[in-house]
């Protein structure tokens, strides 16, 4: 090791010796200091400085006792502020959630309503829908309740029994209904009523 290389490590050497942390790597610079008077003098200066600095480093200092309570107070206020600002955000999200749920509920209710309208219910008037194959549009004919047919059997009779006339012939009713539906001319409500009579 030469003097230039020694100068690079002399601080680390002095610091290590001051704290008794001499490793095998630092033995070589120590040997050089023992053989070179200029480097030995430099090493002595550095060692002296390290000793003094170590004495200063040992001096403890305490922050004033009022700092910790002040910090905790400030911390509580900050935490409270964070909570206070977080509440409106939470409320806003609740509103959005409620609105979305309401919209979903409405869509669901509409869907149920639509499906109920399309399927005949027992005890309710049946809407007969006649399709005119020749025409581009379809027309619905509502059979008046007076002529009507109940889906549920009354006293074991056929569900197609006419309450008013007491006709219970299922096949004849079906044939006349099919004839009406397949007829190119749509039957009017009046004709249906008279037929029912």
């Amino acid at each position, binding site marked *: 090791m030469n003097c230039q290389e020694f100068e690079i490590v002399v601080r680390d050497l002095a610091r290590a010796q001051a704290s008794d942390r001499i490793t095998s790597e630092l033995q070589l610079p120590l040997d050089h200091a023992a053989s070179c008077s200029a480097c030995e003098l430099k090493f002595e200066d550095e060692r002296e*400085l390290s000793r*003094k600095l170590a*004495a*200063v480093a040992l001096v403890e200092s305490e922050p*004033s006792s009022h*700092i910790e309570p002040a*910090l905790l107070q400030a*911390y*509580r206020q900050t935490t409270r502020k964070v909570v206070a600002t977080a509440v409106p955000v939470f409320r806003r999200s609740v509103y959005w959630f409620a609105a979305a749920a309401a919209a979903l509920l409405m869509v669901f209710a509409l869907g149920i309503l639509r499906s109920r309208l399309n399927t005949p219910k027992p005890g309710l008037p049946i809407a007969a829908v006649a399709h005119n194959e020749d025409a581009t549009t379809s027309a619905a004919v509502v059979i008046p309740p007076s002529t009507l047919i109940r889906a549920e059997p009354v006293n074991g009779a056929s569900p197609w029994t006419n309450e008013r006339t007491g006709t219970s012939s299922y096949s004849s009713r079906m044939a006349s209904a099919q004839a009406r539906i397949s007829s190119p001319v749509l039957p009017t409500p009046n004709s249906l009523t008279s037929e029912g009579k």
Partner: protein
Amino acid sequence: MTAENEPSDAELLELMKAGNEEGLSALYRRRSRAVHRFALQMCGSQALADDVTQEVFMALIREENNYDPAKGTLHAFLLGVARNHVLRRLRRERFYVSMEEDAAEHKADGEGPLDDFSRGETIESVRSAILTLPERYREVVVLCDLQELSYQEAAAALGCAVGTVRSRLHRARALLIGKLRPSTQDETTEVKSARCFA
């Protein structure tokens, strides 16, 4: 430094961020002394060191500076924040500090050989000599020699390269050796210009 069953600094910080007051309290008790000592060694004023200590932990509460564990330890991070606060305060109160520097220099020059000093006097003279160093040299001496940080930790605290820390420490120690050398040896006295503001 800390026992294995004790929570780490990062864990305490997470607790504190989660709203746990104990996290802040434990972190303060663990690190406030080092921060205070650093500030005191940098500026030499107890009141200013108290202010800086408070400001450092207030910054931590307000999350003004986001701590990144990848960049270094929380200890180094806190000292870095303290260093920024100290430098800001010193620049604001430059006139006051320059007077203190002058007084310290006169005191160091006028004293006898250090070997005859008692331990307390030695400490005081070293402190005064450190205070007379330029800020960039003072901070590396305080961090590396007084706070016993590694070069890497000091570099993280100062936000510079390890090589810069090494070279500044080399220069700082050379300056300190010169300042603490007994006055019987030949020294070139620095002539300072003075300006009258009257």
